[in-house]
């Protein structure tokens, strides 16, 4: 077993850290307060080639693995929490179904533009009436000659304000007409054509620099050339992307947790009350030590899952466990940081409240802790499915 990063991986970490130094806390505080997408940060990440980290070299990427992508996401989240991570998260792994199943023409058309950062896109899967039960989505694509005409509603679609395109999951056969409910769904890389899609921003707890929206899709015409892979296989193509996404989001949680913990530790050494640094009180020190240990353990699982994925081995259990534990440890670290900073922890100027708000979402999205436990019960422990 080799737990060391390779020189190239270490280099990547160093370079991302150097990039992030140009976007200090004040930057993220400002973007969050103004609800403004971090365009210059996004451009810096794109210009340094990181959006192409997992895209094959023939389309302008670097063709590296999910391990490297996870390192990048951990560092970005360390520096700018979810405002930074979500701004580029989809760019880094979201096009996996296109890479794997898309036609050569589609790949040539979109991948280089995704690497350069020119193309923003959203991931429109979740629906108001389906939630975690994706097979019950209602958005429907009806074939008309060389086109599909799409109607339906999506919710929680992130980055739709910036996006030119969206990876859109629809039904192409109604659920009543398929034998397996996971069949009959199709995936499109559709233009986010504002004349047929109303994008309405939702107000949320945090991560205000990156928007999340409701989409009302009314007669959107999508060329058949924008269908990804085979019609009816959309859900199965998405499944391929679930493990890498879990690994990345787990890495993001670790990054946020470490950042919050580092801030808390610094503060605990400096803040003197009752004539001693507060960190000298074990009531403050032990929870920090405890969550440090939790972050370390969770990170091991993140990189184990990433290693398995990059070696083409099954990693479903590990990716789910990594996401479960990392989300917990990351959020706990943010919570402890707020507590350690006391009243100042609740103030925006000290940043940990921002990490606290933003880190909360990784226990819900892209998949909830409960659904992760369902997966482990059913697929790892082989317990009967409860729902």
């Amino acid at each position, binding site marked *: 077993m080799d737990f060391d990063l390779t020189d190239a991986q270490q280099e990547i970490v*160093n*370079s991302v850290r*150097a*990039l992030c130094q140009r976007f200090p806390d004040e930057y993220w505080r400002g973007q969050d307060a103004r609800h403004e997408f971090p365009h210059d940060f996004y451009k810096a990440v794109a210009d*340094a*080639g990181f959006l*192409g980290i997992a895209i094959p070299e023939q389309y302008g990427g*670097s063709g590296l693995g999910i391990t490297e992508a996870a390192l990048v996401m951990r560092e970005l989240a360390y520096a700018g929490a979810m405002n930074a991570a979500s701004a580029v998260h989809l760019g880094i792994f979201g096009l996996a179904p296109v890479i794997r199943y898309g036609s050569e023409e589609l790949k040539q058309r979109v991948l280089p533009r995704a690497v350069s950062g020119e193309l923003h896109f959203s991931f429109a899967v979740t629906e108001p009436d389906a939630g975690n039960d994706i097979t019950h989505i209602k958005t429907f694509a009806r074939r008309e000659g060389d086109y599909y005409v799409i109607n339906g509603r999506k919710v929680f679609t992130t980055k739709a304000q910036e996006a030119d395109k969206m990876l859109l999951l629809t039904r192409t056969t109604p659920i009543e007409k398929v034998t397996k409910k996971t069949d009959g769904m199709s995936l499109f890389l559709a233009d986010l054509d504002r004349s047929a899609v109303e994008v309405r921003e939702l107000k949320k707890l945090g991560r205000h620099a990156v928007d999340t929206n409701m989409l009302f899709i009314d007669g959107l015409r999508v060329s058949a050339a924008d269908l990804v892979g085979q019609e009816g296989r959309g859900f199965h193509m998405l499944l391929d992307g679930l493990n890498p996404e879990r690994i990345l989001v787990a890495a993001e949680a670790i990054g946020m947790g470490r950042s919050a913990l580092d801030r808390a530790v610094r503060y605990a050494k400096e803040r003197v009350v009752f004539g001693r640094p507060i960190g000298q009180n074990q009531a403050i020190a032990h929870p920090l030590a405890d969550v440090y240990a939790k972050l370390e353990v969770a990170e091991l699982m993140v990189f184990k899952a990433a290693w398995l994925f990059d070696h083409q081995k099954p990693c479903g259990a590990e990716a789910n466990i990594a996401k479960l534990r990392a989300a917990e440890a990351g959020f706990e670290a943010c919570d402890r940081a707020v507590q350690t900073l006391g009243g100042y922890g609740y103030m925006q100027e000290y940043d940990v409240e921002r990490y606290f708000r933003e880190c909360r979402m990784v226990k819900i999205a892209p998949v909830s802790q409960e659904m992760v436990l369902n997966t482990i019960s059913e697929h790892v422990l082989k317990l009967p499915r409860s729902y």
Partner: protein
Amino acid sequence: MKILVPIKRVPDPATTIRVLPDGSGIATDNIKWVINPFDEIALEEALRIKERQGAGDVVLVSIGQQSWQEQLRTGLAMGADRAILVKAEQPVDTFAVARILAKIVADEKPELVIIGKQAIDDDSNQVGQILAELLGWPQATFASKIEIADGRCTVIREADGGLETVAFTLPAVITTDLRLNEPRYASLPGIMKARKKPLKEIAVDTLGLDLHPRVKIKAMKAPQKRQAGRKLSSVQELVQALHTEAKVI
């Protein structure tokens, strides 16, 4: 134009330095190593000159142990074309470094050497000047702006009283100050390409140089911890304290 950029490996400025209990040096475990920040500025400037001219060869050189190649790889990832590691197991003092560099210059024949004004570990601020002297080349230290046209170089340098402009012909040695530029970070394609760029290793004893140390480090000591200040209630008290305790007036 061929530009030689010597780089030194130093502890990350953000690391807390701990002196070993016996005073023989600093504790090196848990230290993160980086390119000396002034050398990074030198490399950035060399890359910009190359980019402005549309062609050129930026060669890195470092004198140290095998592990120093990590910093050379970082420099290659930033965009240098190739690197030379002069392998020396024992530490070398500034005069020895300058002599080794003079030998590398004789072999590589660059038109310009750009080097940090000092390394942030021992802050000697000597290598650039000694090297220029050994080579008999013009030198411009503490550069905050560099312009090159038709084999002539103009440097604005930061002197004590203000800015000084010097002009000279190449070849020359320039040492960099903090305000010259903001170094780039390596791009991902840069990191990937760096793996394939040539890194030549030379054992220092094959150079046939007299490198016996002229400087010996006898002991290292951490600076005194700063004492907390105290508040005085009147100007009289302050004058009194300056006179009797601090003995400065």
